[in-house]
């Protein structure tokens, strides 16, 4: 039993390691904004850090817990708030990009089940080199 558990843990570490292998990205403080139970669109935030010497582009975001995920930027033009779907999120070498309220965010559309405070959702970021970054993101109050 114990051996099984250890091997499962090892397997998980191995799997995580492959997911993360030669990926210089780390994600700090990912969270989903707690939303009304009726919400059909939520927002996710995080700081993406690139520890590598090469810039990385995130070209896709997805989630098994939502119908679709888009990376959005927010801009204001004479008081009009515009959201743009970003097809590429550029993380400079040795740099970081912050997704935060009122600014860039992940737009999480049509949750498959209602998400309450402290629930977690899985979000997968895909880089331009085809690598995947899987995140467990908790629902929090701002």
């Amino acid at each position, binding site marked *: 039993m114990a051996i099984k558990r250890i091997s499962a843990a090892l397997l998980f570490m191995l799997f995580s390691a492959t997911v993360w292998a030669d990926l210089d990205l780390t994600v700090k403080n990912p969270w989903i904004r707690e939303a009304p139970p009726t919400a059909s*669109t939520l927002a996710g935030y995080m700081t993406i850090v690139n520890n590598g010497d090469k810039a990385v582009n995130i070209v896709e975001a997805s989630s098994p817990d939502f119908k679709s995920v888009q990376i959005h930027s927010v801009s204001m033009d004479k008081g*009009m708030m515009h959201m743009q779907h970003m097809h590429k999120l550029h993380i400079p070498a040795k740099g970081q990009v912050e997704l935060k309220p009122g600014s860039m965010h992940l737009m999480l559309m049509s949750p498959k089940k209602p998400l309450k405070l402290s629930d977690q959702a899985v979000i997968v970021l895909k880089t331009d080199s085809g690598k995947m970054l899987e995140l467990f993101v908790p629902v929090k109050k701002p």
Partner: protein
Amino acid sequence: MNKRNLNTLVFFAVILLAGAGVFLSLMESEPPRLKFENLEGVIVESPPTPLPDFQMTTHEGKPFTKKDYLGKWSIVFFGYANCPDVCPTTLTALNQVAQMPNLPDTQFVFHTVDPKRDTVEKLAGFIEFFNEDFIAVTGPKSEIDKFAEPLGVIYDFEGDTSKDDYIVTHFAAVYIIDPKARLRAYVLPPHNEERVGDVYIKVREYYGD
């Protein structure tokens, strides 16, 4: 100068004096514009802009008209319940403003610009999440447009509006409405408790009831 010319002169003099009288009485009721130094994106309306007549419905299904803006100060925001980032950020800030210990009695109203998706039921679940005392208001598009136009609220739909996941681009100011149902000031984003609360209290103290 003949009599006819004299009559004309008197006529114009009377008009001029009457005009000056009206002008002076307006000047008297409207103090110099309140200025906010070092604060960008805060616009004070002087003279204030009256709200139009309109007929809408609250998230509790009650009628909501211009009369509901009379006799009290209000803080107003436009948006839509499916808005993932901008509207929740502002409503969270407004909830903090509502809880400021020194805040005088204030009505908070959220006007949707997306009546197709924002039914009375949907608005109820949405607004009560932020603050149970806030009022959310919807109505026919024609009424929303009538209300939004003089306030300069522009909005636009992006994406396929026959589906359910379109985006609404909208003017995202927080509006301060005086007890005579007139727009007194508005604050552009970013919205946080300090910025909105401070402007609101100063506007209210300066212009009084």
